[in-house]
């Protein structure tokens, strides 16, 4: 899923400073699951901003609404009537949701309330970790199901580098929170007796399918509606 976290409260306050009517729009999908921008967080943020505006002596109208998915037009249509009533839309979706609102409602001023962090998953209560870099050319079959593009700090295809230290990446410093992806890959494949796989030199990656190839798009004719 897409993992995000809320921007600092003070930053959000500054961003909405010039608006009088603000609609906080939560999203019911990924950011709900990672407790960053769902119905509950939208409610808490809206009431905190209301209180703060009262304290500052310039009371604003701040309302909240949550749509099932901010990244699909049909769900955004459910708030079509509301949008026009506000001079600022504070989206608590990932960057996709913010852009969907901006695109679907060209007259609305949509700003982000979250920082979209990565594609990942919860690994323990309250902790999320990156798992995929969406490089567009998956090689997990070669690496024991552990992605070196997303999980090696240098995205090495022939690791581990000299900074692998007792299973940890050298960048993790004293708190040692970053696992060395290549340590995991090597140990897993060696335990399986697949040293031969590790000895294959993985050639330089074709990054065309990644962001480096420009903005990406998938078009599937089998799913497209027939042209009239």
């Amino acid at each position, binding site marked *: 899923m897409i993992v995000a976290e809320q921007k600092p409260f003070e930053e959000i306050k500054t961003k909405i400073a010039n608006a009088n009517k603000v609609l906080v729009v939560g999203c019911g999908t990924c950011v709900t699951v990672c407790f960053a921008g769902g119905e509950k967080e939208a409610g808490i943020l809206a009431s905190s901003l209301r209180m703060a505006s009262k304290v500052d002596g310039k009371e604003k109208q701040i309302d909240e609404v949550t749509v099932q998915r901010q990244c699909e037009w049909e769900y955004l249509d459910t708030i079509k009537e509301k949008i026009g009533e506000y001079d600022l839309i504070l989206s608590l979706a990932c960057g996709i949701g913010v852009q969907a609102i901006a695109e679907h409602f060209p007259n609305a001023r949509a700003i982000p309330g979250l920082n979209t962090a990565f594609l990942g998953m919860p690994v323990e209560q309250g902790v999320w970790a990156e798992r995929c870099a969406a490089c567009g050319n998956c090689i997990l079959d070669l690496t024991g199901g552990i992605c070196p593009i997303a999980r090696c*700090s*240098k*995205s*090495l*295809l*022939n*690791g*581990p*580098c*000299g*900074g*692998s*230290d*007792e*299973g940890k990446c*050298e*960048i993790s410093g004293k708190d040692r929170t970053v696992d*060395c992806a290549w*340590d995991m890959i*090597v*140990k897993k494949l*060696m335990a399986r007796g697949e*040293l031969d796989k*590790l*000895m294959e*030199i*993985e*050639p*330089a*990656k074709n*990054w065309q399918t990644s962001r480096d190839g420009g903005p990406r798009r998938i078009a599937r004719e089998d799913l497209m509606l027939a042209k009239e």
Partner: protein
Amino acid sequence: MAEGTNGYKSGSTLEKILRAGKFAATAELGPPKNADAEVIRKKATLLKGVADGVNITDNQTAIVRMSSIAAATLSVQNGVEPIMQMTCRDRNRLAMQADMLGAYALGIRNLLCLSGDHQQFGNHTTAKNVYDMDSMTLVRMVKDLRDGNKFQCGEEIKGTNPRFFIGAAENPFADPFDFRPYRLAKKAQAGADFIQTQLIYNVPKFREFMKRVVDLGVHEKVYILAGVGPIKTAGAAKYMRDQVPGMDVPSEIVARMEAAGKGIEDKKEKAAAAREEGIKICVELIQQMREIPGVAGVHIMAIEWEEAVKPIMERAGLLPRPIVGGQP
């Protein structure tokens, strides 16, 4: 194909020494954190005739310094053969190949291929890194430029192609230990001609590593230069033991460095005693490296202490350097 290599891959002094079966010795020349060519000239003076080649680091530890290509060129001009380092952190395959064409045109003949320290360690932690390639695919690319006469994309090089003596690094003390000899084999397979290792202080562990390397027969495919270096102070020894990932400094070394200055009141004399002990340990390490099967030479890393290299080489009995000419 380039002319005049006379049967050698690159014709560099380092290549000639190693192929003649002589025990090689390389050193390090760190470029300055400014634009002063005089710094290179001074350091080159200290290293001229003392080593078979000197590594010119490439934004080492992710700290901006004079570019390795410029510093290596100045080194050539000052009569010291450079081993130009190139990392994958700051350049993509276009920039790396462009620099290789330029470096070769400027007379640089040795190239050491590294992935590069992550920018988190350096002085520009907010930078975007590149890592278009890794050290393994970089080695292969340099080999293809030389032996395949082609660019990474497969396009033929028309005219002079860059013909480098190809180096790579390996850290015998990084984890997982069991895979390290295989990774070295992989670098040889990718096309490395020589390997320089991380600094060695734990000799028994390095011996075990080399035993595995020799068992795999890798020492016959690639020249292995063991990394050694003088320690300046007891504090530096402790720091390397406790703080630097991938470094293995036994406590005996720290204890020797601490003992060296003990009882000396004068600060200058105390520091000099520590430096002397550091040089002594380094000389001993070189002697031990010479006895380890599969070791073809040493790489002396006297970081920001280029003055130490000559006394180390002298005491290790490695001077004067052999002169190798003719054909391999």
